[in-house]
């Protein structure tokens, strides 16, 4: 693993510790609630921000090997960098969908 990847993995890992704890607290708060309550909870600013940060940080933590290594951004063009794999693409799409959902809940749309 490149040193930069190692560092990004560690950074996202450290950031994820409080975010994971917060996620667990949020999910416990959502259990058994009806839809209206869930919308209100997930739409509230602090919860929405936490969820957004968790989704983005976790997604990056999973695919840090490939993120940012596109043509032009990475001078070395090693083999690993040339092929973003299916998991990477899937996570980006899943992450974007989640961000959209959270924003939709926050803005009450």
């Amino acid at each position, binding site marked *: 693993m490149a040193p930069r990847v190692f560092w990004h993995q*560690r950074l996202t*890992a*450290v950031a*994820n*510790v409080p975010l*994971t704890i917060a*996620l*667990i607290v949020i999910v*416990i*708060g*959502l*259990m*058994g609630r009806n*839809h*209206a309550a*869930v*919308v209100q909870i*997930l739409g509230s600013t602090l919860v929405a921000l936490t*969820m957004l940060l968790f*989704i983005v940080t*976790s*997604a990056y933590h*999973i695919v840090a090997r490939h993120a940012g290594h596109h043509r032009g951004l990475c001078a070395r063009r090693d083999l690993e960098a040339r092929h973003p794999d299916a*998991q990477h693409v899937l*996570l980006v799409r*899943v*992450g974007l*969908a*989640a961000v*959209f*959902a*959270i924003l*939709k*809940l926050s803005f009450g749309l």
Partner: protein
Amino acid sequence: MAEAKTSRLKDRPLSPHLQIYKPLLTMMMSIVHRITGGALFFGMLLLVWVLIAAAAGPNAYASVQWFMETLLGRLILFGYTWALIHHMLGGIKHLIWDLGYGFGPVEREWLTVATLIGSIGLTVLIWIVGYLVMGGIR
């Protein structure tokens, strides 16, 4: 001629593989760390499904609520909780190692055991709290 060839092939030494290693706890937890990481990928899909269903409307969210009532749903949620906490504690263990601490023969075993006991204990604790918040087992 063919017999000589097969006996030569059978006599050829094979390179040793995983089976030559005694399964130490640190080794097992290392691969478990990777496996929990993989499981968390699917856990993220579950989480995102819940979020999208909540954003979509009450009908979509009703399927989430139904799933969480089933035994399978609860088992998956329990597994996700454990995978999340075990991966987190394992990650903290790796961060401790990154700083250079805990490499001694006693400390590294203790760290590894603590990761496992901690993850099981915390998962059970979290689920007890969750059920208490919900007002008992429903």
